[in-house]
């Protein structure tokens, strides 16, 4: 679905290693399978965020391509890209107290012409997305007055309203409590199955990656360390390489649990 090939990026964008700046992405290549959940795992500063900004079209790699259905995503204009890839940001504080329904409707921006307002079709698509995520009861509440977990659901509903084949989520669990982490990821997994969407997300917790993804890509220092099925990739050896930490993988009732061997 998404084919990322030899991506290079640095902040003095344009040419490589200008101003002595080191590349943040050093030839990242991997494929994101259609209709699956792919998780990118990597320590802080590994280039995960940069990779996401490149795929969202916000930052431009100086070399490499991101192909989807024969088109290079990095060269698409904003409106066309927004019909292909929906980005779910981390929950945030907007400057104005929009209602949940207003926020979800924003997902239709790429479907609404420059000099017009959302049509009945757009409003229905937003309603449908809220229904699917199970947040219809929140529709009139101000987004600023709901909990962090609810906000994340609203942003996922907005991405659904965008009606794209690909959804990318930037650390969707980072500000959430234990229950909400599981809730959000289960919702996302259900949607993938129902709508046949392709998901790319970043996570910090290898256990969540193990439990909720079909495909895992490990990134460290701007390169791909390993990729494949979660159980194949999330091995003690790879995790030690990535985090510099001794871990063991315990098998329990058919689930793999990763736990650190001792305190540092």
């Amino acid at each position, binding site marked *: 679905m998404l084919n990322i090939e030899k991506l290079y990026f640095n902040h003095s964008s344009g040419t490589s290693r200008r101003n002595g700046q080191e590349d943040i992405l050093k030839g990242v290549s991997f494929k994101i399978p259609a209709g699956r959940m792919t998780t990118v795992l990597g320590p802080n500063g590994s280039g995960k965020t940069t990779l996401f900004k490149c795929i969202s079209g916000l930052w431009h790699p100086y070399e490499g391509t991101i192909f989807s259905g024969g088109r290079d995503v990095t060269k698409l204009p904003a409106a066309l890209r927004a*019909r292909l890839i929906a980005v779910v940001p981390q929950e945030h504080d907007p400057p104005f107290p929009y209602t949940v329904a207003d926020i979800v409707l924003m997902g239709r921006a790429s479907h*609404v012409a420059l000099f017009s307002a959302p049509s009945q079709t757009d409003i229905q698509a937003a309603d449908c997305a809220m229904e699917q995520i199970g947040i219809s009861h929140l529709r009139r509440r101000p987004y600023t007055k709901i909990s962090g977990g609810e906000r994340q659901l609203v942003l996922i509903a907005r991405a659904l309203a965008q009606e794209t084949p690909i959804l990318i989520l930037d650390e969707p669990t980072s500000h959430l409590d234990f229950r909400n982490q599981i809730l959000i990821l289960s919702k996302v997994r259900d949607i993938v199955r129902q709508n046949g969407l392709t998901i790319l997300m970043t996570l910090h917790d290898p256990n969540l990656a193990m439990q909720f993804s079909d495909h895992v890509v490990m990134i460290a220092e701007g390169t791909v360390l390993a990729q494949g099925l979660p159980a194949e990739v999330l091995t003690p050896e790879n995790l030690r390489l990535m985090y510099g930490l001794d871990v063991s993988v315990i098998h329990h009732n058919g689930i793999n649990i990763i736990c650190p061997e001792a305190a540092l």
Partner: protein
Amino acid sequence: MQTEPKIKKILPLLILVSPLVLGWLALFIGAYGIEPFDILSYLFDAIFNPVALDSGEKAILFDIRLPRIILAGLVGIALGGSGVALQGIFRNPLVDPFILGVSAGAAFGCALSVGFFPHLPVQIAAFVFGILSVLLTFTIARTQGEVSRLPLILSGVIISAFFTALVSIVKFLVDPQKLQSIVFWLMGSFALAGWRTVGIAAVGIALGLIPIILMRWRLNVMSMGEEEAKTLGIRVTRERIIFIAASTLMVSVAVSVSGIIGWVGLMAPHLVRMMTGPDHRSLVPLSMAGGAAFMIFADTVARSLTNIDIPVGIITAVIGAPFFIYLMKQGGSESWGR
């Protein structure tokens, strides 16, 4: 709780008709007293039997007060509309054309044209320097793709101060006859309103108003931030330019006919947002109506509070500055932060 939805439905309508009601009332208030009890018969005559009005009162009503009230309304529309658009694209509830330096820039353009280049239409000079000032303010405040609240206000203050200084240079160099008119006009006043001015203002403000009205829903999306708006499919730079150009056009025309009138663009969107919510689909037209109502009210106070015609900019500043302080205090750390 049960009556709340009803009030919410009526409020927008009330705001929309408020400039008409206030404008109608303002027609009968002023230095030349018209008895409150006579208002009804004047209303009747004005509509059905204009000949019955004596000529002096007719002139006061239709050649002095009416154009002045309409002009105040138009300027209010321009200030309220540009205020709401600028607050949306800069995602900052504490800005308006006055704070961002647009008014000062436009005023410099006007002063330049009045003082030295009489052949250059004031509106064009005002627009050129208005847009220059807002772009400068924006460029100074923008870091890493986002515009934080406090830096934006600070750079607005800097740019305002700069253009105000340039206006002072013009005042210093220009001949004394022109100086008087520049000084009076700078304080912000509708005292010289006539039908010709109303015509100019109506055309200029309509040109800026149309794109803002048509694109108003996109302000919702743009206020979520540059990166988020981009991923949602908005061509942020292009659409920002449209909004900035349209707002600046309205403000420049307003400044050219009435001088610098601050704070209206800040207060009108705020009060409307508190009453009817932040969705720009309703907020934009209602802020324009609210701005018009407030401007008509302030101008009526300005011309009837004392024997002399106080510049209306003084009235709006006296009300606006405390309002701004109240907003800042109420918003707490959030208003100061990002």
